[in-house]
């Protein structure tokens, strides 16, 4: 009993070791290429000064601090804010940069984004995930987003759109649609029977998505929307715009099972089935 207590203290000691994680991200303007090669203007934060259509996932451990340079290589001003962390934001003029610091005492999922002209800049792609961990299990990350391919050009040029008529035609996880989501090792849930697998989801779009797991129930570990959701064991997980969710899946059997948005319109891309938010998870014995 005594040695057991000792181990617990040691683990607590390790996890409370607070590091400072230094990152640098670049705001770039380019375009999104969809599953059927449709393209439209898009903006993202990037790891390097080279455009990617998915925003980097910033990872920390609980109690770590984030020291983050945000470099604005775009031709217009941008703002920077962390959803569910602070209501204040930083302003980054075109061609300028800013150093921001945050300490994360609560494990969970957060969204960094550009709140300027909300929801325009976030809708145009400037929203990524911050993951704060209190475990070392295999983890998977979904930046969930839908797009109305006819809107981006207008929004980019400050032409007003009517959000009450929003009808997206592309649905992506980390910038990909079926069948490409399965090729993204960050997104595709792969593990073995009995593993503890952690799934981080953030909805950086403007629609509600309702993600359904075949084969397994999962437990909600964290919800930025409501603490009442924590502890629920479910197979379908609605996620609202700018919400983050953390799930724990402990597979009890092997299999390859679909995971998809159960708004079945969202498993399409440009009105083609099944080019949307659909992937499979793969559990080995």
């Amino acid at each position, binding site marked *: 009993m005594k040695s057991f207590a000792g181990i617990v203290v040691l683990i607590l000691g390790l996890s409370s070791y607070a590091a400072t994680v230094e990152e640098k991200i670049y705001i770039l303007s380019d375009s999104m290429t969809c599953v059927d090669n449709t393209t439209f203007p898009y903006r993202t934060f990037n790891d390097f000064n080279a455009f990617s259509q998915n925003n980097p996932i910033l990872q920390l451990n609980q109690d770590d601090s984030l020291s983050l340079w945000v470099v604005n290589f775009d031709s217009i001003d941008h703002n920077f804010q962390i959803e569910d962390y602070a209501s204040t934001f930083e302003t980054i003029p075109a061609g300028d940069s800013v150093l921001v610091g945050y300490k994360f005492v609560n494990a969970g999922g957060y969204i960094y984004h550009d709140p300027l002209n909300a929801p325009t800049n976030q809708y145009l792609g400037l929203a990524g995930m911050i993951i704060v961990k209190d475990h070392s299990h295999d983890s998977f990350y979904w930046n969930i987003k*839908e797009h109305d391919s006819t809107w981006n050009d207008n929004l980019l040029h400050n032409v007003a759109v009517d*959000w*009450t*008529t*929003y*009808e*997206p035609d592309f649905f992506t996880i980390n910038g990909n649609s079926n069948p490409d989501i399965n090729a993204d090792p960050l997104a595709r849930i792969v593990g073995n029977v009995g593993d503890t697998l952690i799934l981080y989801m953030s909805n950086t779009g*403007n*629609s*509600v*998505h*309702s993600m*359904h797991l*075949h*084969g*397994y*129930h999962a437990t909600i570990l964290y919800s930025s929307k409501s603490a*009442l959701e*924590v*502890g*629920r*064991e*479910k*197979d*379908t997980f*609605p996620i609202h715009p700018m919400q983050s969710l953390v799930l724990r899946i402990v597979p009890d*059997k*092997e*299999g*390859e*099972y*679909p995971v998809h*948005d*159960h*708004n*079945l*319109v*969202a*498993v*399409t891309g440009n*009105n*083609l*089935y*099944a*080019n949307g938010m659909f992937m*499979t998870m793969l559990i080995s014995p």
Partner: protein
Amino acid sequence: MSFQFRHIVLGMLFLASFARAQVTTNLLYSKMDFFAQHELYDGNVIRLMGYTELIGTPIDLPSPVLIYNEGDSVDLGMHNFSQAAHHTIHLHGLDVDQATDGVPHLSFSIPHDSVGHYQFIAPHAGTYLYHCHVVSTLHVQAGMYGLLIVRPPDGGNTTWDGGYAFDSENAWLFSEIDTNWHQNDIINDPYVPGSTVEILDYVPQYFMINGKTETQLSNPETSIEGSVNDAIYMRLANIGNYGNRVIFPASLNAQLIDSDGRPLPSAINTDTVELYPGERYGVLLSPDTEFTGNVDVEYINMNTQLVESTQEAPVTISGFNTINQWEVEQEMIVYPNPTQNDLNVVFNGLKDYNGTLKIMDVNGKTVLVNNENLNENSTLSLNTASLDKGVYFIQYLSSYDNLLKKFVRQ
């Protein structure tokens, strides 16, 4: 063991099944309409795809409710009589093995005039769905969906083993119809499995509860009837492509108790329940006053979050359901009610006298079990002096009988 929906709401739930952990087999036919024959409330007639229990009956919305007891070994057969497309049954939320999961390219699909079998053990008591997973966006909208209900192992009127007891139950499945998705070239298309399929924009015109809408909602299948102090269990499920916000009148004292076939970590008092595509919620209603009104069901566009339709389902709560003379004809009579001490139980023509008679509290917890043997002329007296004051249920459960009465310990 499958039941048409009306059976449920007429209160015949008890009869669903009595034996424990039995082998249950049933067969559904999957079909499509060659001509428009499903009439909507306004006279508009559309084509459907769907599942039926008999080959000759027209397709209805939704498909039949499948009911099992937790632990049952189920063999659910499907005979595809579509004349065209392959179909499957996906057992949504049942966490079956991959081969039984009903996803065409990962398990199997059933071509026209073939039979397939889905074999599984009925999981945790709760509310589930089944639907076709072939071009699911189209086939689900076409009508290939229904509720799947798992009762506790004893098939009794509790939400799950050790869960809440209830007097009556309603199961409401929410969905929408866009009639443009029900045209001939969609419903009768013999899709090549694995091919990419073009989908229209989704602009539904009909917003439904159990396939009913607007004026059709004054119907036992889509209304709540009960008495003051009843425990009414609502099973809510969403198989549409919209969100639903279900708003219960405050005097129903709605409590959210389960979701997706599992109890919530703790019950939540709330009059408003939101559920999104694929989700299910269990809500316990405990009306405390006589009342006539509506439950409002809002249909929320997933993209704009705007409410595009509100459907009103009628609620009638009548006065205290006191137990008196009219019960004489019944199979189990309990009196006096309320009681302070002895509760007398009279049986009237039981089918099986080897069952168990027990008293449960409102949470379904057994608080007293009868040890006396029963026979044809049994009249027994149970001493309730040890029970706290409150509402209780007395249940007689055998292989052939399932009788439930409520009484008050004063």
